[in-house]
């Protein structure tokens, strides 16, 4: 896959030709320096963006053929996102934030609540359910974001710098949660990081530099 931004003189090739495959149940780390194209690659894999050339195949189908409704429901049902900057809705409660993907999926209010409380229990946040999301600590916020990613029982979790904003101890807790989801529930994990320690815990590491894949290392 290649990905360029802009046109003409402003054209910037963020990905200059990257080829990789991810198998179900794997944990993969995408490692590289800042600006190397990690987030760009993850967005392509998560079908949030389309490559300028090349293709993304998902279960042997070209993602380009997925349009509109099918693409939206795939992203909603199969993918979970954990972003570096949380992206929690300010003012809304923790529970409301967590059930957002369920609401988008069109689940009824009662079921939404039940499932929301279930994932909050899994992440030990039940007592914070009614708090405003913005009132939590950084580590708690990241757990809320993971709970939100889990709410729809996704098959793949995309995590962009999940521990980037956290201190080492809290970061370790979040890492444990993610790897236990991968180990115990078979959820495929794609982690973008520049943290070698975190990368080392993954089954596979993909190194990119300046938009090119430099090496792929299996554990």
């Amino acid at each position, binding site marked *: 896959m290649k990905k360029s931004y802009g046109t003409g003189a402003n054209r910037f090739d963020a990905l200059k030709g990257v080829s990789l495959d991810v198998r179900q149940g794997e944990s993969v780390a995408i490692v590289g320096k800042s600006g190397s194209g990690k987030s760009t690659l993850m967005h392509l894999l998560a079908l949030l963006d389309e490559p300028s050339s090349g293709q993304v195949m998902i279960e042997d189908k070209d993602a380009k053929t997925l349009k509109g*409704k099918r693409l939206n429901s*795939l*992203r909603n049902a199969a993918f979970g*996102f954990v972003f570096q900057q949380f*992206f929690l809705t300010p003012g809304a409660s923790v529970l409301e934030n967590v059930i*957002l*993907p369920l609401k*988008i*999926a069109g689940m009824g209010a009662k079921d939404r609540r039940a499932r929301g409380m279930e994932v909050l229990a899994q992440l030990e946040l039940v007592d914070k359910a009614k708090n405003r999301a913005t009132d939590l600590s950084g580590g708690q916020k990241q757990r809320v974001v993971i709970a939100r990613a889990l709410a729809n029982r996704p098959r793949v979790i995309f995590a962009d710098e999940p521990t980037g904003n956290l201190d080492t101890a809290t970061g370790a807790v979040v890492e444990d949660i993610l790897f236990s989801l991968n180990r115990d529930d078979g959820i495929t994990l794609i982690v973008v990081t520049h943290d070698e320690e975190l990368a080392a815990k993954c089954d596979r590491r993909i190194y990119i530099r300046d938009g090119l894949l430099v090496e792929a290392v299996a554990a």
Partner: protein
Amino acid sequence: MNVFSIIATAIKNTFRNKLRTTLTVIAIFIGAFTLTLTSGIGTGVNTYIDTQLSSVGAKDVLTVTKKAPAFSTVSGPAKYDPEASKGRVATTQGPPGSTIPSLSAADLSAIAGVKGVISVDPTVTVSPDYIEYATNGKYQLAVNNFASVTKPPLAAGAQLDYQASANQIVLPTDYISSLGFTSDADAVGKTVSIGISDVTGVQHVVTATVVGVQEQTLFGGGAGLNRQLTSELNTAQHLGQAAGAVQLVGSSTVRVDPNATEAQITLIKSDLDAAGFTARTVSDQIGTFKTVIDGIVAVLNAFAIIALIAAGFGIINTLLMSVQERTREIGLMKAMGLSSGRIFGLFSTEAVFIGFLGSAMGCAVAIGAGTAVSNALANGPLSGLPGLQLVSFTPLAVANVILLVMAIALVAGTLPAYRAARQDPIESLRYE
């Protein structure tokens, strides 16, 4: 996201920035308040005229005049035309000082010859000096020249019988106690004397029977006289006139079958029109009046709508700011699989809800204030016009105002909603 969640979420989002929403809602409130009130005045006045008309206007009586020639387009006095200029009479139709051609005997028989016309009477104006009952004192008598074409609501007794050979009079309620009757019903059947002076100043007395007592209406508060009494008074007031003198009449009263349908009356009118006459029922004449009121109300409504359009820009502004503020949230929802259509729906619903809030409050307050003012007026300055509610509200009119405002809000919401829907999830998530 299902429709219910979209509505619930949109409503919740409306209250996220309370100050901003409140300010926008106030702008809409003012517009909706004004529009409800002005349309309420339109409804109130027109309803009053309609009820007055239905109780007053006789359907089977037409006022027929000779067709007036079209206004001269040349400035300055028109050239003398012996035919058109002969025997013009003053009229109360049109601006003060207007004249219309008088009706000749030939004209009257031409009118009588039109199919469907039962009778034609030249409309004569009588000016009696006084009215007196027994020896209770003389009072000035105002005559309602409209009497033959109207059927006013009665407090007692019966309507005038235009065919009766006896003199009949219908008195307004405010004459009753002055003339010395104990009640409205007491007056019915009593004989009153009417004094009238002829051209030489000699006073003649004509007696008439009170057949009914009428309520006050918008159209003339004077006494109604039947055909026989009118002609007897007319004869009396022209006594002493030089032999051969003609009395010019400008209009005539034409009666048609009381059971004639709307279509039949229209046909008679067009036949009269073809013969060179203008025929109008009371409702036609008052219709002109209603057109003026409708015009005034339309202008007032236009001002209210201008206010609402200004408020619409307030909505656009508010929502554009919300879209800007919620860029990341929109990106996140799109990343999580919410379609552009639903995002559009979310912001449109928010716009419509803001419109609903403003208009519902505006209408509610307008109804409260309008009703209070209207009641105060009805009991105070307007108590002389019983049944007039200056401002009145129909559920349909109020619903229309709310729907109109919601429609304006929906239109105003499209730009921000389109912006939100078009946002690229990646770009939104990168947004600082």
